[in-house]
């Protein structure tokens, strides 16, 4: 050894106490306790009603409608959104501006208006016919028969969602390193298969977190179908409220279910995220994420991996 410094015996190391955040945390906790106590002990709210109606059959039906609508609309929205995203990045300027106009219009107008439009489509088109334009008609049905409350709701929500998903999928595609595309092309994949087999699956990692958020929003947006006689969770709950004016109680009933649904959705989102980030040792993704300090101090290991990684 060149430096004959005696090996220091391990010194006792004292971490710095962090008074600021401890006091803040205590204050918040205290405030929350106070708040919780006031809310629960409030004589204006009859929690028995909440408990009594939580599993009411009509509420359950509403829950089912909300769930089915949200899942359906989200699925169609994702698929159509992916198509729009690819159109938006197309070579063909007509397709590109078409997709642009779609996104502009459907993001720009309130979903309420869109729902009313689909539901009242018969104002514009009293019948819907399938056939050759200016030629023979094969099937003709009245619009109101097709555009039931459920169909309009699902359609309206899905078409609206597609506009948002298009931007999300597009960001996902753009996030994939060009090297991936080139490697796939060089291997002999066609551009289309490169997109579907290499780019889109990897884009999922970036697409899933915002899609999860969208789905959580969607669960709650379904309540707007009230205006077109859709019997979703919130509408059903409020129907009870209107009978006896106990609005708050029934809003709590609905909220409990919404919280449950969103919690389950969040849970599912984490699992999907984990699945699609397999092979990546980045652990920056969703909660429970690394703490800020862990980031500042640093997980050099994962950084190094990322540098070496292909993406």
């Amino acid at each position, binding site marked *: 050894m060149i430096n004959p410094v005696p090996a220091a015996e391990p010194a006792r190391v004292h971490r710095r106490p962090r008074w600021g955040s401890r006091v803040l945390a205590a204050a918040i906790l205290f405030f929350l306790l106070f708040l919780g106590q006031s809310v629960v002990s409030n004589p204006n709210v009859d929690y028995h009603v909440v408990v009594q109606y939580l599993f009411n059959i009509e509420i359950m039906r509403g829950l089912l409608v909300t769930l089915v609508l949200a899942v359906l609309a989200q699925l169609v929205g994702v698929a159509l959104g992916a198509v729009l995203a690819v159109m938006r990045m197309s070579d063909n300027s007509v397709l590109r501006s078409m997709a642009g106009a779609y996104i502009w219009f459907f993001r720009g107008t309130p979903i309420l208006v869109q729902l009313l439009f689909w539901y009242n489509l018969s104002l514009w088109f009293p019948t819907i016919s399938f056939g050759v334009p200016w030629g023979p008609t094969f099937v003709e049905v009245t619009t109101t028969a097709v555009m039931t409350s459920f169909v309009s709701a699902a359609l309206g929500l899905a078409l609206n969602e597609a506009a948002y998903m298009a931007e999300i999928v597009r960001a996902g595609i753009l996030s994939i390193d060009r090297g*991936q595309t080139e490697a796939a092309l060089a291997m002999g994949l066609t551009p289309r298969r490169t997109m579907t*087999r290499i780019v889109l699956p990897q884009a999922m990692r970036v697409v899933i977190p915002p899609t999860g958020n969208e789905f959580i929003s969607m669960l709650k947006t379904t309540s707007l179908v009230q205006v077109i006689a859709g019997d979703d969770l919130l509408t059903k709950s409020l129907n009870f409220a209107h009978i006896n004016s106990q609005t708050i109680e029934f809003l709590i009933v609905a909220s409990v279910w919404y919280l449950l649904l969103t919690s389950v959705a969040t849970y599912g989102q984490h699992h999907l995220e984990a699945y699609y980030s397999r092979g990546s040792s980045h652990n920056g993704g969703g909660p429970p994420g690394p703490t800020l300090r862990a980031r500042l101090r640093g997980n050099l290991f994962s950084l190094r991996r990322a540098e*070496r990684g292909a993406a």
Partner: protein
Amino acid sequence: MSGPMVSAQGVHKHFGDLHVLKGIDLEVAPGEVVCVIGPSGSGKSTFLRCVNHLERVDAGKVLVDGEIIGYHEKDDGLHEMSHAEVARQRSTIGMVFQRFNLFPNMTALENVVCGPIWVNGENRTGAVERGRRLLDRVGLADKVDGYPAQLSGGQQQRVAIARALAMRPKLMLFDEPTSALDPELVGEVLDVMGDLARDGMTMLVVTHEIGFARGVADRIAFMDGGSIVECGTPAQVIGQPRHERTRAFLSKVLS
């Protein structure tokens, strides 16, 4: 007598106003190893990418094994091929990138077998078996199930080589395959490439590793400013460079 494996004829390429390739002519015979060296920005990568039509040439043409890459020749000029035809041509040309470009969501084995299965329609069992053999050949028998992020740079690059070999290419293109590696890891990749050359693979290699070029290349081409300034055996180009620019470059890199 078989013709050249690669034949570039007056290849020009512009990026907007930038004239990047100014008429490249180069032939590579079957089984030959040609290394391309030259300063950054001289157009080495661009040329290599023209060979498998990752870049479209603006004028001139590139033939691989006698076929024009990316175009059908007709009376009125060159007609662009369909995506599927280009893909078929590319499937016979292996390419290894500087940054490996492994698919991060697939294991090493999946990376290697996906091409044969998707592109050549090989059956899964056969492809997997051959994939394992290839990974074994590049010294990674124990890493088949590792994801790229779990491998060192040198290991990743060897998987990338195995992935290209899995397509049974007639020609391999390498674009600075070791320049993203830690110095101690460079050797393992160069070893694999040397073996490949000895096995008779036709190779076009862009590299900064003068030692490798000297040892393995049949010929070395020195590019500068979009042209091939000189081209000859390693002894000629490295030992007795004829051009001032070549000398200047070599003195920088070898110092």
